[in-house]
């Protein structure tokens, strides 16, 4: 399930919900991205999505993850709007019969979400506001999946 929300969420509550009643699954991996305070440099992060378009784009990558890895299920929750330091920005959970598939699918989805997903991100701090571009590291991370043969 893919959800964009303006409301703060607790990643733990999502993991409880996601892992409940899975008696044939074995492996659940999650990743939570938290807004960083940058030692006071950022007070508020603002994330903009294109409603409909953004969910559809993430949905395509979720389908690609399902095709590449042997997954039983996945969940993606993404904050939009204004986010305070320490709050969760993104939560991804993957369930699979085997540990490696769960980890790799979660990693794959996060690399996409952090570098190519249709969001625009602004930092508001004491020195004003500025738009943020993906880091070089995010571009390198996503490039790892292009080099590999599909599994």
């Amino acid at each position, binding site marked *: 399930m893919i959800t964009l929300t303006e409301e703060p969420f607790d990643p733990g509550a999502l993991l409880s919900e996601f892992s409940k009643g899975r008696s044939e699954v074995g492996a659940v991996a999650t990743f939570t991205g938290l807004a960083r305070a940058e030692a006071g440099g950022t007070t508020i992060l603002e994330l*903009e999505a294109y409603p409909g378009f953004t969910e*559809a784009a993430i949905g395509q990558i979720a389908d690609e993850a399902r095709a590449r890895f042997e997954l039983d299920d996945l969940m993606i929750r993404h904050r939009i709007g204004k986010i305070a330091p320490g709050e969760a920005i993104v939560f991804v959970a993957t369930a699979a019969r085997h540990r490696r598939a769960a980890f790799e699918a979660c990693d794959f989805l996060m690399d996409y979400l952090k*570098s*190519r997903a249709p969001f*625009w991100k602004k930092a508001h701090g004491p020195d004003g506001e500025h738009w943020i571009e993906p880091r070089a590291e995010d571009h390198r991370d996503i490039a790892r999946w292009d080099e590999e043969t599909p599994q």
Partner: protein
Amino acid sequence: MARVLLFGPLRDLAGWRERDGIEAASIGALKALLAKEDARLGAALSGPGVQVALDQAIVRGDQPIGPRAEVAFLPPMSGG
């Protein structure tokens, strides 16, 4: 007739996020119209990495715009 959406830095540059009822027969005509109103916005709309979505699908080059079309200008995406 198109509904036009601007995202990210384009919205800040233009000072608006959404406008409805803009008369333009194509993406090219729409860009020209917006450039005439606001030259800096016009340049930014054709800037590096700006993609255009017509009715929520990315399109390349010029395209005719149907009635009640939604045209979105998407600057480089930052990821979440």
